[in-house]
């Protein structure tokens, strides 16, 4: 593991996310993150697991400043996350995020969901973005639904649209916050397949999930968080067969 923060640029294996000693207190005084370190290299898929309330969602939400933090530092794609709003907007353009509840915009069609941000934020021409959006929808397998509204789609389809919506901004990093937790069991697989495909193409991904099979097959590294700290970080094989820490063994027993 490297301990040097990323330098700008993106040579293979460059550090895309570097978090050092991140600490966060909620306004009610709850100490949610207690000095978390993590580096994510280009093309890596890092899966974060842990019991609920362990701070894993809070942690990845600090990467695109949906949550602020009080101590420590975070670099994303060579930019330090500061209090500069311009800097925050720039980072958000490079980091896509997929939520547990999909959070598609129900008043827009599927296609409009995809084109909204690229046109408004990246100032790209609508025609070009629409063509690209249709290609993306094709890739996630729902091109024929482009003119429907999200409410007319199943949960699995909605989550695939949400992934396509993030990809349409051409991000360099994708964050997934429990992307399959709100889905009916029979729809989990179709979403995981899209994510697996994305990983194969070399996208840098940080995934908070409870899907052990996905972690085993796709993850470069598995991180276990508990009580706002990283307990264990290991390659998936080692993590699932021979974890070093008692806390990890306990967690694996619980989800087994």
């Amino acid at each position: 593991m490297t301990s040097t923060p990323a330098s700008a640029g993106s040579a293979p294996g460059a550090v895309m996310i570097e978090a050092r000693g991140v600490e966060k207190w909620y306004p009610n005084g709850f100490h949610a993150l207690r000095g978390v370190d993590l580096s994510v290299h280009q093309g890596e898929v890092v899966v974060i697991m842990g019991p609920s309330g362990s701070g894993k969602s809070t942690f990845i939400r600090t990467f695109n400043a949906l949550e602020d933090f009080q101590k420590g530092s975070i670099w994303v794609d060579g930019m330090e996350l500061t209090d500069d709003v311009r800097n925050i907007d720039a980072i958000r353009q490079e980091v896509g995020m997929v939520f547990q509840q999909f959070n598609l915009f129900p008043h827009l069609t599927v296609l409009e969901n995809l084109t909204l941000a690229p046109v408004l934020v990246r100032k790209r021409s609508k025609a070009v973005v629409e063509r690209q959006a249709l290609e993306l929808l094709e890739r996630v397998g729902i091109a024929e639904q482009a003119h429907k509204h999200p409410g007319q789609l199943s949960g699995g389809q909605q989550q695939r649209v949400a992934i396509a919506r993030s990809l349409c901004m051409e991000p360099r990093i994708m964050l997934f916050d429990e992307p399959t937790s709100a889905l009916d069991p029979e729809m989990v697989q179709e979403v995981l397949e899209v994510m697996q495909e994305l990983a194969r193409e070399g996208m840098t991904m940080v995934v908070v999930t409870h899907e052990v099979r996905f972690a085993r097959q796709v993850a470069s590294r598995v991180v276990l968080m508990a009580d706002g700290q990283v307990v264990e970080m290991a390659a998936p094989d080692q993590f699932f067969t021979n974890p070093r820490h008692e806390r990890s063994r306990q967690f694996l027993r619980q989800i087994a």
Partner: protein
Amino acid sequence: MPPSSVSAVTPWWRNRRLIPGIVQAAVGLVVLVVVAFLVGNLVRNLTAAGLLLSWSWLGNPAGFDVSETLLPFDASLPYWRALLAGLVNTLRVVLLGLVGATLFGTAVGMASFSSNGLLKRLARIYVELIRNIPLLLQLVFWYFVVFLALPNGTSAIQLPGLVLAKSGLYLAWFSDLWHLQWQGPHLDGGVWHAPLRLTVEFGALLTGLVVYTAAFIAEVVRGGVASVPKGQWEAANSLGFNPLQTLQRIVLPQALRVIVPGLNSQYISLAKNSSLAVACGYADLYSVAETTLNQTGRAVEVVLVLLGSYLVIDLVISALMNGLNRMVQLKER
């Protein structure tokens, strides 16, 4: 190592920890400037007109009469007594209006659940008719078209214990509370007399307010009852309750949790709407205040009295209804 140029000092207008403070300071400044501007003008203009805020005029004799007061009043009494008499008149119509509108509104609301199709539709038509016609128009209608067209003398509408004439509403009541002497309305030299007389102005205002507010209360009641899941009716039926028992014991206690907050806002609108009394010649607080302004020119003080009084009435209604609300919500467990 991180390139040092990226983490260069953030300018203050782009710092997300400072932006909230900046925005608030800007808003605060604008509000402050506007308020200072208005108050400055007010003080300057009032000084020029010799009307700087003062309350001593409240003690001067009013010089006008207030019709039908509960408290004794005549033109020689001071302004504050006139305003107080108006306030009491407002409270009188509001209190009676609340009771009437609640009873009538509940009846109409429940009628929309009747098994009788005609009654159900009539309740719906009533609500749609009343809600889409301005209250003020309804008030002048009741006053000029209905109440002022009532006949007088022997041709007045006579019911047992109640006479409706152009000169007022005459009700039977105890003429002597000590000896419990009951007395009905009686005709004396072509003029009706009764222990209890209400003016047609009051009658028109009360009728208008009750009929109008009842339409809104009916909707609140209907919505409340409809919010109780159908399974509750079915469960009660299967336990052998009859429909009335079901309504009383099972449905209403649950519906009240939705109804009471809705009633609160309807009660407050009724209180505020009572200020339209001036349209049918009833001397409520607003109408007395208007006369007071015309005589004294004390615009600011009169408006402050008006706003303050209605605010207090609103707050009292809200406090009472919140108390009721707590009772209703607690019953749940």
